[in-house]
């Protein structure tokens, strides 16, 4: 399903059905979910193509935050000045873009997972974040690419003491997602400063064969991004 498609076209996968059919005035886009919910949109264009790829998972059911919070199913205790990597999952939101020449326009965002929000920090200075509970994996797990993505997390404890982490909060702006036919990947780093604070960031890895970089929703909307880092000051 992910990738660029000529329209009219129709596709179905994991209970999600997308259809672009030609009508007199352009195209009609129809999205059907497994629970029979349907969404329609009319696109006024003579000829265009569509791009379907994962986008930053902070938009549904409503864009109220820029942060994604991953809570690990187990606590991880890391030695002083140690650097380790592991895998976890994150929720997928699928962006449907229509484009002509190089002008992209998002027409729909779909998620096959129920969303949940959580507060990170205290009510006064904390942030609301999209919440996702994940298992920890030492090897890259196999997941349904329309439901979950794989996040490769590198944790570096820059403190002189042992520290324990149970969650990761990421700034979804500037998040670089990569995908192929089988999976969606994201790379993030977490630098532990002390027992209650850490600095997190999504980063771009060296090019990996067969992976394409996903169109970022907020770049396509031309929203200025200042920083992609997040400072976890209210516990790690």
């Amino acid at each position: 399903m992910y990738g660029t498609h000529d329209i009219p076209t129709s596709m179905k996968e994991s209970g999600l059905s997308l259809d672009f059919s030609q009508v007199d005035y352009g195209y009609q886009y129809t999205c059907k979910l497994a629970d029979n919910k349907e969404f329609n949109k009319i696109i006024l264009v003579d000829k265009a193509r569509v791009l379907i790829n994962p986008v930053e998972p902070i938009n549904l059911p409503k864009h109220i935050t820029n942060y994604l919070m991953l809570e690990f199913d187990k606590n991880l205790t890391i030695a002083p000045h140690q650097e380790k990597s592991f895998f976890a999952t994150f929720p997928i939101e699928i962006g449907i873009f229509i484009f002509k020449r190089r002008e992209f326009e998002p027409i729909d965002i779909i998620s096959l997972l129920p969303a949940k929000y959580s507060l990170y920090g205290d009510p006064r200075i904390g942030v609301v974040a999209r919440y996702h509970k994940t298992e920890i994996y030492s090897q890259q797990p196999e997941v349904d690419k329309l439901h979950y993505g794989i996040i490769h997390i590198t944790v570096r404890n820059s403190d002189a003491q042992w520290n324990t982490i149970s969650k990761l909060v990421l700034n979804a702006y500037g998040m670089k997602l990569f995908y192929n036919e089988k999976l969606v990947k994201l790379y993030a780093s977490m630098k532990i400063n002390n027992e209650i604070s850490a600095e997190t960031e999504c980063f771009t890895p060296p090019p990996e064969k067969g992976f394409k970089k996903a169109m970022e929703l907020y770049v396509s909307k031309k929203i200025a991004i200042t920083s992609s880092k997040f400072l976890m000051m209210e516990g790690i």
Partner: protein
Amino acid sequence: MLDTIVWGKITVLQLIIAIGIFIISIIVSKILSMYVRRSLKNKASKDNLEIMIKIISYAIMIIGLIWALSVVGLKLSGLLVAGGIMGIVIGFASQSIVGNLISGIFLMIERPIRIGDTVNINGSTGIIEDIRIISTTIRTFDGYQMRIPNEKVFTANISNFVANVVRRFEYDVGIRYNDDADKAITIIKELLDKEPFALKNPEPLVWVNKLSDNAVNINVKIWAPISEWWALKTSMLWRIKKALEVEGIEIAFPQRVLWFGDSRENNDTLPVVTSEKNITQ
């Protein structure tokens, strides 16, 4: 004609130049305000932007005024001396305006309220539309606009409903005594778990908090993002009621059983109530 003296040593030409400078300073302040608003529209919050624009605007107008006064030969130092008694008179006459002005400056510095906040000021609830140098404007939920002098705002008890990123609300759900309260709690928790905006952390609290006259009261406390709490609060209670009813748990309503003395065979024995419909003697 232009050399004609209009007052003291001030000529018509000086007066025209002074007025011209002041008008130009107003025009420049307006143009600059428009330019700053346009260029920083997506880069600064509306609240910060409006304050920045006001500071720039007032600063340019004050500079223009001082320049205009110097053209007609009035020096500020001279004005201060000449002010004297007149200054005191004007001071007394305009003390409320000055009070509002000072309060306005402190409101902009301390910032207990910001443009766009939902607040209650002295019993008036609404959304802050603008914080000006003399007064603050709020739009009430009935749709009318209210102007409150800044002195009143500054000294009033202010409740800012959106100062924090999340907010809690609660319901009391009264179920019948013969319903299973544990089951009701589980149903409500499952419902809240499926609701995206009922926050995972701080987690919702659902507990039996009172055995009242007619019902077992279950208290439900829910935290929600500040932008969503009202929509959630207005929808969640009915959803809880429907979810409980699907599982056969009903909301209790007040009821009282009346016994008349002549309807009993033995007036010395009180009836024993074992359940709503099963009464024995």
